[in-house]
């Protein structure tokens, strides 16, 4: 592996750099020593078994949970990243119309007081893009699961963010809706936006996502989807994610970062100034528990 000096290299707009990143709960890492850059314009799938740290990584990127170690370099500004959680904290019993829900995506433009009326056309266009034209005045509580997910995608559209993070966006969604939403995602990709989606359906990943990060708390493989999603890698991911230890010792890899192969679709090559040798072998005898991964 090549080593080179990196200082505080500014991240290009739309890219996310993960530097020696460890995320977790109660000091137990759920994502362990992750290094690499998600380049601007990437369409990347985040794959791994349950508890692999996919949701944790996405929450870390938006700043919802703090890094235990290492850091995430991402472009600033509240409009930079749009995020669709797996099971949001959305109160669907709240008497709010679909149009108002979508209008929330305009928060950065509208703020506390500015009128949303001039934006109405944008909002309606977003609703029509997700196939919900005519649903403007319906209460959100009356939508079906698929319709609601479509409405949330409309909100993502009006957020107009450079980076879009999706946490299992198609869980519990029927094939027709999934196909429509994937078409939207491909449209965003065509506009040069960076998209990271946590997914379980490997056929979907192979069909639509050029790059994949296979995660099992440790990065197992990262690069072209074809080369990442091999039987061997998937088996390793499964084995890694099943190992856990309630009384894990303190991690001794504090100075040395564990590397994943850098993404191969034009991603920044990563290296750092520590002169230490390490590989992917798990030569340390402790394992980690995480149990809180949503």
């Amino acid at each position: 592996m090549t080593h080179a000096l990196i200082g505080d290299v500014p991240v290009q707009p739309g890219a996310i750099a993960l530097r020696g990143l460890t995320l977790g709960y109660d000091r137990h890492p759920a994502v362990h020593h992750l290094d690499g850059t998600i380049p601007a314009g990437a369409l990347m799938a985040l794959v791994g078994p349950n508890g692999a740290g996919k949701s944790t990584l996405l929450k870390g990127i938006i700043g919802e949970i703090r890094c235990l170690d290492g850091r995430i370099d991402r472009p600033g500004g509240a409009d930079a990243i749009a995020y669709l959680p797996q099971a949001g904290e959305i109160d669907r019993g709240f008497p709010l119309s679909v149009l108002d829900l979508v209008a929330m995506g305009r928060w950065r433009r509208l703020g506390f007081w500015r009128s949303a009326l001039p934006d109405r056309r944008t909002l309606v266009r977003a609703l029509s893009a997700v196939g919900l034209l005519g649903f403007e005045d319906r209460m959100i509580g009356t939508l079906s699961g698929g319709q609601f997910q479509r409405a949330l995608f409309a909100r993502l559209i009006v957020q107009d963010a450079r980076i879009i993070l999706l946490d299992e966006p198609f869980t519990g969604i029927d094939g027709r809706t999934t196909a429509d939403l994937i078409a939207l995602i491909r449209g965003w990709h065509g506009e040069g936006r960076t998209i990271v989606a946590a997914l379980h359906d490997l056929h979907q990943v192979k069909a639509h996502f050029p790059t994949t990060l296979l995660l099992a708390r440790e990065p197992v493989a990262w690069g072209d989807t074809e080369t990442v999603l091999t039987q061997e890698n998937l088996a390793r991911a499964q084995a890694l994610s099943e190992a856990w230890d309630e009384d894990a010792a303190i991690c001794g890899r504090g100075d040395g970062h564990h590397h994943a192969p850098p993404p191969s679709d034009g991603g920044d090559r990563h290296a750092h100034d520590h002169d230490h040798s390490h590989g992917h072998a798990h030569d340390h005898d402790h394992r980690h528990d995480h149990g809180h991964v949503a």
Partner: protein
Amino acid sequence: MIDLLFGPFIEFGFMRRALAGCFALSLSAPPVGVFLMLRRMSLMSDAMSHAILPGAAVGFLVAGLSLPAMTIGGLAAGLFVALLAGIVTRTTAIKEDASLAAFYLISLAAGVLLVSLRGSQIDLLHILFGTVLALDDPALMLLGGIATVTLFALAALYRPLVMECVDPLFLRTVSRAGGPVHYAFLGLVVMNLVGGFQALGTLLAVGLMLLPAITARFWAADLSGLIPTAMAVAMVSSFAGLTASYRADLPTGPAIVLAAGSLYLVSLLFGPRGGLVWRLFRPRHLEG
């Protein structure tokens, strides 16, 4: 008929003052109650109303039955408990209801202890049941001031407050306004409870805040309907309660809250949105 309804207000200044005070409260407390209800924090306001007691009691110990002292004390105690509970919630694993319960119980016990240290039974009754028929100028101005501040603050915070209710995680990802907005809202709750306890007493201060809000749920579908409906219910309750208490010589605070309670029960049965009576009929379903 006119005399029956309006007689006492035409005849007596104190009745007009009571009505004005209750109307001011009817404009400010119900909208706050609507948000509390929608955030499933209805009982939280009840806890807060108890948390106010020790502050009011300290004011009472220092200055006797003086409005400014008890108001400032009540505000300070309420805000302190709300802030403390909020901090504990955001920094530990304890949920908001549990941490609030812990602090309000401490607060309530301290309040009862303080009041019983000095002061007679009658003073205690004033604090517990309010003095709506003895509202003086400062008290009226306080109620009017609270209503004004509440309505302006709600107008200013409306959008992030709704977002914080519907999708707090989304608000966190696009803005840092969520935390401050939440605390500002808790401040409004405390302020309106202090206002309510001038009129209705600590025990019933929540009455005009929550009952109209919950009643409105049976009549209106969205916020633009819920808030005015809740205000109207509160005003009707105030008027009916005051009239009834004058005619039948009933204590005023309970009469007003019971009037609101009656409107709730009627709405529960006959309200067009989910009233129980409508369940007896099954309307023909639509084509699509």
